[in-house]
């Protein structure tokens, strides 16, 4: 008998288990894979959001700005800060202009300065209105995994790997092996699998939108080795250091999502069919803005399901989802659109 069971050993499941255990609860964490943080928490852009990325949602920007120092302090050993991060505002088709972006950063009080001339020369002035240097670091997901593992151990959370939950029952869960574990509270932290678990448990689904995302892992030319570049704000690209593989990740708002679907009763889950890579598309477009990219080498592609709340599509906000089930008492579904959202969790837990 546990006080709480957490399903899903991603960043959110681990963090939630920690919070509960530190509050004195006896917690069991169940993860389907053979290790923690193997899915979205590993396969992402590794950006510790500092607000810059959300010029169209002041609230999300502001929350990121507030949570940023907490995250970087909390996980200081997992931070990769040996690079400079540049945000470029596109001249055409951008949802914000350079002036609006400056105003936005001033409003949320995120530090911003114009990039030095040498850096601006990397860019094509016909397509890029302005380039800024910002303070925004990346995280190393493998180090994050190690840090969480040791914290979970210290907090005496019982972690089970290769433990798939097949459904949630009243005051407990049933594992794929048929084993039954009991706890008055069950947290569903399975991200792209949220609705699968809910539907198998007979609970009401949540409106979620999924995208099959392709992240290209690349080797950049030497002069860009210690740089990250994000082009704002529309169908543009992002080139971020990817610390866990000692390379960069290239993603593109237009080309990274290969397909999108909404959970319905008929189908949930991932489009698993292997697809041809869109690296060439991303490279061709990125080169137009950043001719300095020159010879970009494609090392591999990482495929992951990205899950977003349909409500946040319009304004680009990334709120946290925290939803107690109306059908199964004690079951709560938790999903964060980005890692630093985790600091918005304790307040919600208290309200339970």
């Amino acid at each position, binding site marked *: 008998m546990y006080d709480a069971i957490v399903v899903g050993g991603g960043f959110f499941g681990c963090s939630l288990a920690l919070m509960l255990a530190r509050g004195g609860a006896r917690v069991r964490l169940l993860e*389907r894979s053979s290790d923690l943080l193997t899915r979205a928490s590993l396969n992402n852009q590794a950006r510790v959001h500092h607000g810059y990325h959300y010029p169209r949602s002041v609230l999300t920007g502001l929350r990121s700005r507030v949570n940023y120092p907490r995250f970087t302090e909390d996980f200081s050993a997992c931070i990769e800060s040996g690079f400079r991060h540049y945000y470029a505002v596109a001249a*055409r*088709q951008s949802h914000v202009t350079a002036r609006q972006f400056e105003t936005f950063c001033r409003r949320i009080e995120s530090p911003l300065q114009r990039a030095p001339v040498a850096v601006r020369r990397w860019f*094509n*002035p*016909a*397509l890029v209105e302005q380039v800024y240097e910002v303070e925004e670091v990346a995280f190393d997901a493998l180090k994050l995994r190690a840090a969480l593992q040791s914290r979970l151990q210290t907090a005496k959370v019982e972690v089970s790997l290769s433990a798939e939950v097949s459904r949630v029952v009243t005051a407990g869960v049933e594992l794929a092996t048929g084993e039954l574990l009991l706890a008055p509270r069950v947290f569903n932290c399975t991200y*792209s*699998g949220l609705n*699968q678990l809910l539907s198998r448990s007979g609970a009401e689904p949540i409106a979620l939108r999924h995208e099959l995302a392709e992240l290209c892992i690349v080797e950049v030319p030497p002069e860009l080795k210690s740089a990250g570049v994000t082009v704002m704000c*529309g*169908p543009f690209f992002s080139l971020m250091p990817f610390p866990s593989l000692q390379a960069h990740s290239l993603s593109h708002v*237009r080309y990274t999502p*290969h*397909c*999108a*679907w*909404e959970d*319905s009763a*008929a*189908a*949930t*889950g*991932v*489009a*698993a*069919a292997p697809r041809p890579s869109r690296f*060439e*598309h991303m490279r*061709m*477009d990125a080169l*137009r803005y950043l001719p300095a990219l020159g010879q970009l080498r494609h090392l591999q592609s990482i495929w992951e*399901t990205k899950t977003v709340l349909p409500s946040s599509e319009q304004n680009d906000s990334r709120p946290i989802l925290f939803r107690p089930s109306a059908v199964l008492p004690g079951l709560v579904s938790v999903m964060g659109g980005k890692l630093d959202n985790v600091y918005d969790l304790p307040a919600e837990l208290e309200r339970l």
Partner: protein
Amino acid sequence: MILSALFVSVVCRLRDQAALVEPLIAELSSVLGDHYENYEIVLVDDGSVDGTAAKIKELLSRFECVRLLRLSRKFGVDVALTAGLESAIGDYVVTLTPGMDPPALIPEMIALAQRDNAAVHGLAARPSRPLLHRVGARLFHWACVRLLDLPLQPGATHFRVLSRQAVNAISEIKDNYRYLRALTPYIGYATRTFPYQPLPSTPKPESLLEAVDTAIALVVSNSSRPLRFVSWLAVLASALNMAYIGYVFLVNVFKHSVAEGWTTLSVQNAGMFFLLFLILAVVTEYVGRILNETRERPLYYIAEEANSSVLIPGRDRRNVVTDSQ
């Protein structure tokens, strides 16, 4: 057939052509898919009001590699194509007029562009036009080439192939008035012409009045020669005036009864006013143009972008599994 590794973008401008959308996409997809590993079809909706954009969006789930750029209102062919050019990512970008330019010719044109490392311009066999229109067009082209230093090609259409280099050069031109027909020669680079027979469904050519309007705008935004002519005209006018002053002076000296002179006076007056207004007209055109350029307004506004390959379960079930591992 081995697919070429080239990345080809095709840009089309659509204006109230909902009926044309589906056959266009279907034909482009089959031609491009048969020849190139990577391609994209960029459809620019120039503020259509007949549901063209909605029709395209509907087709996005059936056809791959299609992108829709919807402009916020009508901006005209050249600006719409520019919006497409500035968003296209291919090694080669093809622009074409739907319903007029046969997509089947694209591979041939691209092969030519590649072989000669040049931009390729389609030259259409012109449909018959009224005599006045034909003569006017001839005269205009003669004037452009001989007097205005604008190397326009008679019969040149929007069917062209531009290399990435040429597209980049065009996106750097910031003029708000743009006529791709004049810009493409302007940026230099080698060019080749490609004569072809337009499709029978070719839209009607513009009327004489529209053609004259386009011609004036085209000349004013691409040549400063008329201003130079006006300067010479002004010099001539002042010289004539000087001569007239001399004449008046001489008359005064040698004639004692100066009662005549009404004729010369009015002729001189009328002549000078004629020149003055001519000069004013040309200068006004240019001042207007300068005004618009210095305002630095964006060339166009894109209201939305939409892409194909949105997967909807149920309609395309084979890509969905119920397990995420």
